[in-house]
C-alpha cells in the first residue's frame, strides 16, 4: 500500500549466505556491513517508489528507522521485503515478546521511503545503543 512516496510492506528477517559467511570473518568489516545493510524488494514495489537499482531506502517502524541498500528480487512477492539478521534490522524490531520470550522478528509492518542517506557506521550504532 503506497502513500505518496511511502510504501507499507511486511518485513521478513532471516539468514543469508553472505551474512553467515561474513559474520565469522568479522562484524566490523565492510563485507559484513554490506551483507546486513541490504533489503530485498519486489521490483514492482521499487518502481512504485521510483527507487533506482543501487539506491538506498529508509525502513521505518514505530521503534526506529534504518538506511539500507534496496536490491530488486523477483522472488519476493509484492508487499514483502527481506532484510538479513543483524544489528541494523534489530533497530526496528519490537522488543515485546508477548510472554513467549521471543521477539516477533518476522511479519512486522514497516514503511519504506527512498533515502538520500548513506549506510551507517556499525560502531556508531553500537555506541548509540550504549548511550554515547
Amino acid at each position: 500500500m503506497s502513500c505518496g512516496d511511502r510504501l507499507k510492506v511486511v518485513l521478513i528477517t532471516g539468514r543469508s549466505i553472505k551474512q553467515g559467511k561474513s559474520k565469522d570473518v568479522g562484524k566490523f568489516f565492510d563485507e559484513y556491513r554490506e551483507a546486513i545493510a541490504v533489503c530485498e524488494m519486489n521490483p514492482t514495489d521499487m518502481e512504485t517508489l521510483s527507487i533506482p537499482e543501487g539506491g538506498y531506502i529508509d525502513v521505518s517502524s514505530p521503534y526506529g528507522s534504518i538506511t539500507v541498500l534496496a536490491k530488486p528480487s523477483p522472488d519476493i512477492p509484492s508487499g514483502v521485503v527481506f532484510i538479513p539478521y543483524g544489528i541494523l534490522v534489530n533497530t526496528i524490531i519490537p522488543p515485546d515478546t508477548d510472554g513467549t520470550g521471543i521477539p516477533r522478528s518476522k511479519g512486522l509492518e514497516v514503511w519504506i521511503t527512498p533515502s538520500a542517506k548513506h549506510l551507517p557506521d556499525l560502531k556508531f550504532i553500537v555506541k548509540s545503543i550504549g548511550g554515547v
Partner: protein
Amino acid sequence: MIIPSIVVEEKAAEYTIEDVICPFCGCCCDDIIVSVKDGRIIDVRNACTLGASKFLHIDEGRLLKPKIGRFESAREASLSEAIETVVGLLKDSYYPLFYGWACTSCEAILLGLDLAEILGGAIDNTSIVCHGPTILAGQDLGLITATLGQVKNRADLIVFWGCNPLEAHPRHIARYSVSSKGRFISGRRDRKVVVVDVRRTNTARIADLFIEVKPGYDYEVLSALKMLVRDLDLEVDEVGGIPVSKLEELADMMVEARFGALFFGTGLTMSRGRDKNIEAAIELVRCLNFKTKFVLIPMRGHFNVTGANEAFTWRTGYPVSIDFSQGYPRYLPGETTAVDILRRGECDLFFVVASDPISHMPRRAVEHLSNIPVITLDPKLTPTVYLSDVAIPVAYTGIEVDGSVYRMDTVPLRMRKIVDPPPGILPDTEILRMILEKVRGCV
C-alpha cells in the same frame, strides 16, 4: 566435570586431520578435512561456504588481549586484572544475567550454570531469539522427532517450512535430507521435496512443489492441512493465500508418503503466532502418525544451541530462561526470559559467553546495557565486545579446544582441537573456572 584439551603433540609442520566436526550451524557435519601448516589452518575440504569461512578466518578481527573499558576508552589489561575486575563486578551485582552459550561447549555451559546458581542470577541461551517457541510447544505437546539418519535412510517426502537450508544449513540438503542416500532410499529420485515459505527462496528452486503462504498465516494453513489429513472438508476456497486445491495436493502427498519429515525454522517461530505455529505443526504431524510415519525436526542455527538446551535441562529441568534468585531453578517465559529481563531493565549485570546479543536482540531491549556493566567472553571483536566493560578473549570451541556439542537432532558429538589458540588465549572453560573459584571464595 571438565574435559581437558588434548595436548597437541609435536607434529610435522604440515598435516591433515579428517572427520573434523564443523562448528558453524546445527548440522555439525563431521566429515570435514582440515589441513594445517605451521600451526595455522590453510585449507578446508567438504565444508560449505559458511563452515569454511569460519575455519579459514579464525585469525581475523580477533580479540587478542583482555580489554577493560567501553568503546574507544578500552585499554589492554592482563588476564589477572581482567578476572579480578569481573569478580568484583559479579560480587557487587544483585541480579546478574548470564547469556549466550550457543557457540561453546557443554563443559562451559555447565560452568555458567554453576556461576548463575551461586550468584542467584538468571541464565539464558540464544534459543530464546530463535527456537524458543519450539521449546514452548515441545513442553506443551511433545515433539515427534527422529535423528537425521532416519530421514536419510527412510524419508521419501521432505517438507521445508519457514526455513531456507540452502542459505542457512547448506549441506543439510546433500547430507541429511534431499539427496542423501541410505539403506532404503537411493537418493533424490526416491523423494519428493516441498517448500512452504512467504517468498521463493533459493531452497524453493530445488523443490518439486513450492507453496507461497501469506506472511503471518502459517497457523491457519497448518490447521487446514490437519483438517484435510483427517478427511474433513474445508469450507473456503483459499487459506493464507493458498488455494485449497494446492493444500489438498500437499495433504495427499503427506498421507501417501512412507516416511515424511517436516523441517521447520524461524519462519514459523518468529512470525505471528510463534509457539502456536509450532503447536499447529506438531498437531499436524500427530494426525499424520495415525496414517503413516511422520516426524518433525527443528533447524537449529548454531552448532551447540541444542547442547545449551540439553545441559540446561539436565541440570535445572528447563531448557532456557532459568532464574536462580530464589535458590532453585525457576522458569517463566516472559518473566525469566533474557529479552524481557533486559527490556524491563531488571538485571544489573550482563555476562555474555559465545554470543553477540547486541547484534541479535531488538535494540530497545539492549539499550538497558547503557546502564549496567557488561562482561563478554568471545574470540572475536563483535559489537557486544565493543560495548563491554570487560572482554576476555577465548579459544574457538571445535577448532582450538575440545568440547561436547549436540547436533540439531540432539545427537551428541565431541569436537576436537585442531590448532592452538594465539598465545595467552585460554578456553572459556578455564576462564569460567577461574572466575568461579574466586567467586566461591567470597560467597
